[in-house]
């Protein structure tokens, strides 16, 4: 059972930076888990600790049941794809693919067989004699995948493997990765800051911020039920609108918006509205005024930027700060995702109905979701 378990893993770099803070994570055998978060949130450090390239300051890491803290990368039976692919520039594609096997002193004939199998699987047969410099970005990416797969590792680690590709190729490779995982069933840990990759690829996603695990769960669950304002603001594109509000006697008020929420304790709250939770039809729903500034027609939908008749706040996802206290309302735009048949004109004020069942509430003091 080559699953990966992290128990209270902390990494403090010389100089005192806490990159990963008490991270606990259980990844089942064959599972595809995404570590996602803004840059500097510790996701790459976490991956490098699983790989053995960094040693955890405290905590234990287990792969397949055994503690691997003291085990060198070569003996962990893991393979890693680096963001810049790290192909050996002085070797041909064939020798790049064969390298991990040669290091393991596999018989030459078996190496050849494995290399050709992997090359076929990733459509690299015609490129075997080329050097990395003679390959396109997508081809290099496939060679990097191949070099990782050729050893049939227990755990497959990927560090932003698609971030250097153009948008179209990224979509193709994303699907390719998913197919590959379905076919091979290797336990995979995938680091990305791209939430589309996180949503589409992962069986579960782990949202990290400031070295801490914010939420762990299947993508849809994380999207539907964000555990705190950070996750709410980070997952989803365009991001969730967050409004400053207050709860009094089961009624939540945020600017013009008034919602009945019996059972919500009195106090300051943050009201979260997904862009798609707002409707042009108002009939009977709680509604707010929306002054339209910019309209972005995308064909199947219209993204509308503007000002909402309520105080908007932002979670500073870039600063890895999940605390509400530092939120600042100036200059934030509200975003709504509307039906293209009801495309509003720029400069007008429209009234948008709010789907009450899709409203998220967070405690303004702790940032945690109120359920």
């Amino acid at each position, binding site marked *: 059972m080559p699953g990966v378990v992290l128990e209270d893993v902390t990494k403090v770099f010389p100089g005192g930076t806490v990159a990963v803070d008490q991270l606990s994570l259980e990844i089942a055998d064959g599972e595809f888990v995404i570590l996602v978060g803004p840059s500097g949130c510790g996701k790459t450090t976490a991956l490098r600790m699983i*790989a*053995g*390239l960094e040693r955890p300051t405290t905590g234990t890491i287990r792969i397949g049941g055994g503690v691997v803290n003291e085990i*060198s*990368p*070569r003996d962990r039976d*893991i*393979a*890693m794809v*680096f*963001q*810049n692919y*790290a192909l*050996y*520039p*002085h070797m041909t594609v064939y020798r790049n693919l064969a*390298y*991990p096997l040669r*290091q*393991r002193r596999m018989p030459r004939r078996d190496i050849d067989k494995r290399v050709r199998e992997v090359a076929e699987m990733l459509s690299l047969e015609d490129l075997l004699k080329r050097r990395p410099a003679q390959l396109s970005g997508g081809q290099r990416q496939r060679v990097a995948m191949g*070099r990782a797969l050729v*050893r049939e590792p227990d755990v497959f680690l990927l560090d932003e493997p698609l971030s250097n590709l153009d948008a179209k190729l990224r979509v193709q490779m994303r699907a390719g990765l998913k197919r590959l995982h379905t076919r091979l069933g290797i336990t995979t840990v995938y680091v990305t800051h791209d939430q589309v990759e996180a949503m589409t690829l992962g069986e579960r996603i782990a949202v990290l911020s400031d070295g801490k695990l914010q939420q762990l769960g299947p993508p849809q669950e994380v999207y539907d039920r964000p555990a705190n304002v950070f996750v709410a603001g980070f997952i989803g594109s365009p991001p969730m609108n967050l409004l400053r509000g207050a709860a009094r006697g089961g009624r939540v008020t945020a600017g013009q918006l008034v919602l009945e929420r019996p059972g919500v304790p009195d106090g300051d709250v943050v009201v979260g509205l997904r862009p798609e939770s707002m409707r042009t039809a108002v009939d009977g729903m709680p509604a707010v005024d929306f002054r339209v500034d910019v309209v972005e027609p995308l064909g199947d939908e219209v993204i509308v930027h503007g000002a909402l008749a309520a105080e908007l706040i932002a979670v500073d996802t870039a600063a890895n700060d999940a605390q509400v206290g530092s939120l600042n309302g100036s200059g934030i735009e509200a975003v709504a995702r509307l039906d293209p048949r009801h495309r509003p004109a720029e400069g007008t004020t429209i009234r948008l109905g709010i789907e009450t069942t899709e409203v998220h509430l967070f405690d303004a003091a702790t940032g945690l979701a109120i359920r």
Partner: protein
Amino acid sequence: MTAPRLLPVETPPEKPRRRLPFSPRHLFLMPVAAIMLVPLLWMVILSLETEVQARSFPPVLIPSGLHFANYPAAWNAVPFGDFFLNSTIYALSTVAGNLLFCSLAAYAFARLRFVGSNLLFIVFLATLMVPYQVLLIPTFLIVKKLGMVDSVGGLIAPNLCSAFGVFMLRQFFRTLPIELEEAARIDGTSRLGILFRIVLPLSLPALATLGIIQFMWSWNDFLWPLIIIDTANHAPLQLGLSMLQGAHSTQWNLLMAGTVMSQIPMLAIFLFAQRWFIRSIAFTGIKQ
């Protein structure tokens, strides 16, 4: 299939201008090159003159005949074959030693974290600032203690590794992406394996540079051989040539014939590896 051309490709109209068959800066460089050539040319001329012509003043620039006999005469006046052999051994051994030992030390300084690594590296660098003349006597004493005075081994030993080489290679190694080494570690390569299979193959330009610089330095070295070598048969070329210089008189034509012979390998290497030489000088920002 070619894509349809959407815009006509504009070709600039040809200007009927008289142009030099070379770039204007060559107008400056060619005379400079000619000046540089004078000593070389004079060396060759002297090597072909008679002893009287070579000694006369004003110098005879056009010899009466080509006295090629000077060459065998110079070769036989002193053990030239030994000089060549010693110089070759000296130069090749120090090149090999520098490439091996400097890369090992440079890799340690570039990538391994150990207590005092920075301090040690600074001490290494500081030795570059000590003039060679200051080091001569201590080095001599050490080599003497090792019982290697007046031997080719004593010639080679102190020059097997240089702080300059360590510094240069360390700087180069640090420019290589660390991910390559991490990937190799995950692929199961040991530290030494990483150095020899990944780092060194990618450092060929730096290694070639170091090799060329060290070869030139050893081949032209005079001072250290002068100190350490007593026996003519153990002398490398530059020291051996000085034997053609007598205490009271010098046969300039023979000395120049010997010098020409001693420079032929350097010229050959230069012609063969001109590209690397130029790159080396550009690479290190130094001239010798």
